[in-house]
C-alpha cells in the first residue's frame, strides 16, 4: 500500500446524498478533514448529522456521492476491505450503545479481542488502562453498563472507542444529556485523547460550547448541505445569518423549524 501524502485529507466527502423514502435527508454534503485535525458539525435536531457520520462509517449506504478515507474510496467497499477501513475508526455513539450483555471491561476490550485478536488477559489490562485515561476507576470494571449513570456510560463508550488506538475518532453528541461540569470533563477528555493518539476527529453536536472547545474548524449543516465551514475561532463572526441564528439560539431568522413551518 502506498503511503498517502501529507496533503491528502484523512476524510473527504463530496456530493453525499441520502434519502429515506420521500425524505431527502442529505442533499450533497461536501466536507474535508485534514490529518490530525478536528472538525465539528453543528446543526439542528434531525438535520442529518448522525446520518452523515453513519454514511462515512458505512453503517448506512449512501444513495450517491464519494467518501474517501486516506484518499481511498470507501463508499462501495464491502467485506474485508471495508472491515480494514472500519478498523481505522472508533466511534462514540449518541446513546453510548454499550453492550448490555457484557461487563464494563468486556465492552472496552471488545475491539481488542475481536478485531485485533488480543488474548483476553492482555486485553483486560489494556482496557483497564483505557478506563483510567477517561477517569474511570478499576472497581467498576466488572459492573454491568446498566448500573452506571449516563455520564459514566459516555466515558465507558469513549474508553471503548479509544482502546484499539484508532486513527479516526467519531463523536456523536458527546455532551448531550450531561450536566455542564460533566460535559466540560468529557470535552477535555476528548481533546486529550485525540491529541495523544494523533487522531483525526469528527464531532457532531448542537452544543456550541463543546464545538468551540474540541474543534479546529466548524461546519454547519442545514437542509442536507453544509452551508458554512470555517475555523472555530471565526464562528462568532461568520457573517452567515443561519450560523448566527444557530449560535445565538434565536427563534427568529432564516432557519425555520419543520414543526413551525407546518
Amino acid at each position: 500500500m502506498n503511503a498517502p501524502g501529507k496533503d491528502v485529507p484523512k476524510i473527504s466527502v463530496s456530493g453525499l446524498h441520502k434519502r429515506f423514502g420521500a425524505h431527502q435527508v442529505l442533499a450533497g454534503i461536501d466536507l474535508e478533514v485534514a490529518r490530525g485535525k478536528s472538525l465539528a458539525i453543528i446543526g439542528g435536531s434531525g438535520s442529518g448529522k448522525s446520518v452523515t457520520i453513519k454514511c462515512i462509517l458505512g453503517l448506512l449506504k449512501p444513495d450517491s456521492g464519494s467518501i474517501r478515507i486516506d484518499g481511498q474510496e470507501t463508499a462501495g467497499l464491502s467485506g474485508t476491505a471495508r472491515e480494514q477501513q472500519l478498523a481505522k475508526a472508533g466511534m462514540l455513539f449518541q446513546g453510548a450503545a454499550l453492550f448490555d450483555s457484557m461487563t464494563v471491561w468486556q465492552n472496552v476490550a471488545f475491539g481488542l479481542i475481536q478485531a485485533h485478536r488480543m488474548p483476553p488477559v492482555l486485553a483486560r489490562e489494556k482496557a483497564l488502562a483505557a478506563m483510567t485515561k477517561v477517569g474511570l476507576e478499576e472497581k467498576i470494571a466488572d459492573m454491568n453498563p446498566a448500573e452506571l449513570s449516563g455520564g459514566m456510560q459516555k466515558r465507558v463508550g469513549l474508553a471503548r472507542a479509544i482502546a484499539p488506538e484508532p486513527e479516526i475518532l467519531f463523536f456523536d453528541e458527546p455532551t448531550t444529556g450531561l450536566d455542564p461540569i460533566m460535559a466540560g470533563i468529557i470535552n477535555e477528555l476528548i481533546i486529550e485523547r485525540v491529541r495523544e493518539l494523533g487522531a483525526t476527529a469528527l464531532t457532531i453536536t448542537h452544543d456550541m460550547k463543546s464545538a468551540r472547545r474540541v474543534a479546529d474548524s466548524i461546519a454547519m449543516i442545514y437542509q442536507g448541505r453544509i452551508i458554512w465551514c470555517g475555523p472555530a475561532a471565526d464562528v462568532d463572526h461568520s457573517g452567515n445569518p443561519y450560523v448566527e441564528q444557530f449560535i445565538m439560539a434565536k427563534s427568529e431568522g432564516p432557519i425555520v423549524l419543520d414543526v413551525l413551518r407546518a
Partner: protein
Amino acid sequence: MNGWNFLAIIGRIFLAFLQSTGHLVLFAGQALRHLVLPPFFVRITVQQMLRIGYFSLPVVGLTAIFTGAVLALQIYVGGSRFNAEGFVAQVVVISMVRELGPVLAALMLAGRVSSAIAAEIGTMRVTEQIDALTTLATNPFKYLVAPRLIAATLTLPLLVLVADIIGVMGGYLASTQRLGMNAGLYMKSTLDVLEMEDVTSGLTKAAVFGFLIALMGCYHGYNSRGGAQGVGAATTDAVVSASILILLFNYIMTDFFFS
C-alpha cells in the same frame, strides 16, 4: 371504479408480500454465507445452545407428556368404535415421533425462543449496539445471527428426541394406569412398529424448524425500528411468522417424505 380499487388493493398487498419475501430470502442468504465463512464464534454458539436447549427442556417435556397421554386416551375412545383400541401404542408412537413431537416442540420454541431472540437483537438495533459492533470491526451476522441459527438448528432435534421419548412415556402411563393395558405388551408394540425412517424424518423436520425459529427471531429483531414499540412489534411478528412457517414447512416436508 370500485372494482379497480379492489384490484389495486389486492395488487398492493401482493407486491408487499413479494417484497418482504424477497427481503427475507436475501437476509437468509447473507446469514448462510456468514455461517460457513470464518471466523466462527464457537463459545457464543455453545452458550446459545444452552439457552435454547437446556432451558426449554421443562416446557417441551411437559407438552410432550400430556400430549402423549391425551393421545392414548383419545385413540382408545375413537378406536373402540371400529375395534381398533388395540393399536393405541402404535398410533401414539408414530404420531408422536413423525408429527407431534417436532411440531409441538417447535411451536413451543417459536413462542419462547423466537421472541427472545427478536427482543434481544431488536433492542441491540434500536440502541445502536449493532452499529457499535460493526464499528468495532465485528460483523453482526457472524457474531449475532450465525451462532443463533446454528444453535437452534442443532438443538431442536435433540429436544425433539427427548420430547418423543417423554411423549411415548405419557402414552404408556395413560394406557397402563388409566386403561389397564399390559405394560410389557405396550412397550413391545411400540418398539415393533417404530421404524428408523419415522425417527429420522421427525428429526429432520426438527432441524428445519429450529432454523426457521432462529431465522425469524433474527430477521425481525435485526430489522426492527423505532424504540420500544418497534421491538415489541418485532417480537410479535417473530412468533407469528415462525409459527406459520413451521406449519407450512411441516406440510411441505411431510409431503416430501410421503412420496
